[in-house]
């Protein structure tokens, strides 16, 4: 009987240790990463390509 109890306690402790050790990502880190990734040049390419006239990829404004 006592052995069963000990086993249960050991298993419970092991589970607890595993859960505690699992690196839980901070919500702040995740959303900041998402924010920064969404501002990367690759993410922005879509809008740029949609708006930019076909052959003015480089240089100078178009004036008015």
């Amino acid at each position: 009987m006592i052995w069963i109890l000990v086993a249960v306690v050991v298993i419970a402790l092991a589970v607890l240790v595993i859960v505690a050790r699992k690196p839980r990502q901070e919500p702040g880190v995740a959303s900041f990463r998402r924010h920064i990734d969404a501002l990367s040049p690759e993410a922005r390419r879509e809008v740029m390509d949609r708006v930019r006239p076909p052959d003015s990829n480089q240089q100078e404004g178009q004036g008015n």
Partner: protein
Amino acid sequence: MARDLAIDLGTANTLVYMKGRGIVLNEPSVIALNRQTGEVLATGREAWQMIGRTPGYIVAVRPLRGGAITDFEITERMIRLLLQRVGVSRFTRPKVVICVPSAITEVERRAVTDAARRAGAADAQLIEQPMAAAIGADLPIDEPVGNMVIDIGGGTSETAVISLGGVVALEAVRVGSFDIDAAIQAYVRREHGIAIGERTAEEVKMAIGSAAPTDDESQAEVRGRDLMTGLPKTVVLTPEEIRFAIEDVVSSIIASVVRCLAKAPPELAQDFLVRGMYLVGGGGLLRGLAPRIERETQVPVKMSNMPLEAVVMGAGHCIEHYDALKTMFMGARRP
């Protein structure tokens, strides 16, 4: 289901970007009203053509002039008409991101978002113009480096330092290219004794206006009304005298850029020397302005690729990545 929208509600020009489509509207921020009944008679280009040419019962106005919302009711009607024109109805309720001058007050902010919601938006968020401009000008604002953007519009000039997706330093003044037009108008009146309209003054600015001497300078003929005789009269204006006429406005814009530079932390300031600062907005197209800013600040100045569209492109990017970029909206950062 309506497509979500990004709006650059500029003092001079209004642009609308539709999610998944691109820019669907680009026209002057002008509305023409019947003075007696208050009815809207025209908006955009059509209303712009009426400026200074209307009979007494019509009034053509720029409701956002001066970078402030001078008339809430008219602004709301303009937003409503704008949304209607791009297909928003009571049954299609899109999310809307609107770019506003960073200097607008809490009351003005609420007026704009309320107006958009009443006009059919499911959700209306605001983003600061220089932030949108930096995104739209394709600056590497996702990196921990100093990105400086100068947005000179019709009614406002805003300079911002941006790093890691946030504003580090900001300097905004309610002085812009319209003030250059007004300075030309006042000068011609004072020195040549003729009255010219604001559209004529704008044409003079674009034709021969400059912030510093340039290689290709020419004179311009301008027609107006003689203040003494009341008759139409033509005078010739030189680039030098226009430079003199607009000097106060130009130098106050440059002073605000200098103030922003001074606010930037030293680590970022050294980035500017290498990367330069980026000029966006129609006012930035004034001849000789970029070299003049460069000379006075000792920092290289570059013209962005699409100076008139950069702000709406930046806001458009925010509507494409709405959830990830929520934190950039004005309410989110300063509740």
